[in-house]
């Protein structure tokens, strides 16, 4: 695919300012480094900033290969797919991918209040809980990019197909709760479409149609606009350029409020790092 060769300088420069002295990135510039913003920044930035972020990540890989935040009984390992995408080929990346394959969400069984195909699992935010759209989309993306023969991919595709809303987009989770159809959101629709590159057109085309509507409705949100731009560009959608311009305007206006995750997604969406999220067809 054809892409610009450089991300807008202001986005990458703003993001680089968030890097801590330890090489990692926090959710904001003044906060301690954490796995998810560090992994996204490592993807978004060129060397040497990316190298320091990767070094930070590798040092924080957990014994099971995952990356995340843990306290008490709650273990959020949802940064693992982003970390896998950011890491160079090698043991740490392989172990992260092994973890993604082994740490699926918990199935809940049939429940008429939240109808879904109970055979599907997807991926959860926190270990051993229910599967949701964004963690499923990112796990599916990492496997399809880095381990395209993984047996876990089929479940990811089936989960997102099952969770698609009637309007074509994706809500954060189930499309129907207690008989009410829920709407798609731009950010979660983009998260799903990132993982669905080249997938069944019967799923993808309504999803893209929804995203073309949603990014315009939700253009005031930096994260929504950034992830929507990434998804539209990866799907070669004709709306991509317009969304990118809107994103750059928003970033120029308010700096995406200094949110590292939003800034990193914006830099990825508008720069060469997007190449690293391409699913080979």
């Amino acid at each position, binding site marked *: 695919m054809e892409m610009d060769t450089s991300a807008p300088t202001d986005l990458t420069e703003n993001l680089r300012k968030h890097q801590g002295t330890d090489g990692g990135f926090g959710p904001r510039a003044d906060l301690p480094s954490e796995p998810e913003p560090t992994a996204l920044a490592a993807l978004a930035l060129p060397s040497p900033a990316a190298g320091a972020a990767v070094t930070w990540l590798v040092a924080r890989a957990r014994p099971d290969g995952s990356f995340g935040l843990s306290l008490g009984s*709650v273990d*959020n390992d*949802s940064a693992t797919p982003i970390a896998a995408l950011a890491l160079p080929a090698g043991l740490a990346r392989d172990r992260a991918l092994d973890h993604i394959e082994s740490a699926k969400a918990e199935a809940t069984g049939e429940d008429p209040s939240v109808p879904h195909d109970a055979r599907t699992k997807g991926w959860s935010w926190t270990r*051993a809980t229910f599967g949701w759209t*964004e963690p499923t989309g990112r796990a599916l993306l990492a496997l399809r990019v880095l381990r395209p023969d993984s047996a876990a991919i089929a479940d990811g595709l089936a989960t997102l197909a099952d969770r698609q809303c009637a309007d074509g987009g994706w809500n954060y989770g189930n499309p129907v709760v207690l*008989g*009410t159809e*829920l709407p798609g959101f*731009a950010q979660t629709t983009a998260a799903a479409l990132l993982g669905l590159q080249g997938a069944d057109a019967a799923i993808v085309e309504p999803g893209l149609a929804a995203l073309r509507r949603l990014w315009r409705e939700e253009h005031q949100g930096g*994260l929504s606009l950034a992830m929507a731009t990434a998804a539209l560009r990866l799907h070669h959608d004709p709306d991509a350029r317009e969304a990118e311009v809107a994103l750059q305007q928003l970033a120029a206006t308010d700096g995406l409020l200094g949110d590292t995750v939003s800034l990193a997604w914006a830099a990825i969406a508008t720069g060469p790092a997007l190449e690293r999220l391409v699913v080979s067809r």
Partner: protein
Amino acid sequence: MDRRAFLARSAGFGVAIGAAGLAGTRLLSQSGRPEPWNPSAFRPRGTARVALLGARTYDDGLEQIVRDGLRLIGANVGRARVLLKPNLVEFDAGTSINTDPRLIAATVLALRRAGASEVVVAEGSGHRRDMQYVVARSGLLEALQAVDAPFVDLNADGIGAHRLQSRYTELGQVWLPRAVTDADIVISMPKMKTHHWAGVTLSLKNCFGCMPGRVYGWPKNALHWAGLEGAIVDVAAAVRPDYAIVDGIVGMEGNGPISGTPVTSGVLVFGDDPVATDVVAARVMGFDPAKIAYLSEAARFLGQGDLERIVTEGEDPERMITDYAVLDRFLPLKA
């Protein structure tokens, strides 16, 4: 029914909430074991003050109404750093999900007038990860700019680990945002809504928004997975709001907290005790608070649930009742 009659009913309610407390114990904890909270961490439950003030719209006189409400409950915010925690779980222009931005802005002004040294508005949206979108689209950004008040995204704030002092779940510890732990005073400011899993969502359930999504996810499913009602008690006991202001000018009935129907109640409920505030607010919604398991359980240690020990000011609660429609599964919770 006048206030005397209301208070007479309170006696029965006091008994009922005791019984429901026992029922809650069966629901939320296991008999034969120590009480699921650390008694040294929670002060004895004293008399609580709750004020109900009528407000038909969001357009006029809200600052004065809030000032009156704060005065009636004896709120002391002088020289305090106040964190105001509204409910902005997501945005839908067609319904009434969120605490109204006009009320939030009016409360900022009222708190400043009452002597607060700093007022910060903070929320960690439960469903939408893009807080920038929710704040902008809901009108909160514009409302806060008009009163020059800062907003903190609790999903992206600095966090610290805190050991729970209650044990209704296996969570053990929780991450709490610095904005919450650094505040001198926390005011929980929910929308008056039904909740399709918990019956009602008021100032205790609103504390879920203090739990950072980057740990607990969107929605904060780890808390639901831990046991929703127990998690409501544990999280509220960790956040421990000092005051509550419930936005019942327009609430939500039916399939709340997202997909319900707007309902005009025309009331604001203020309290110096979030448990007492929720007990009275649930009653105003037409519920029997004693039948809401998490509320009756919280009344055992976290706040006052006995209406005989809740001093009500302002409007007569019984005259303010709007019978909120509920899903069939919650019909047994109605008074």
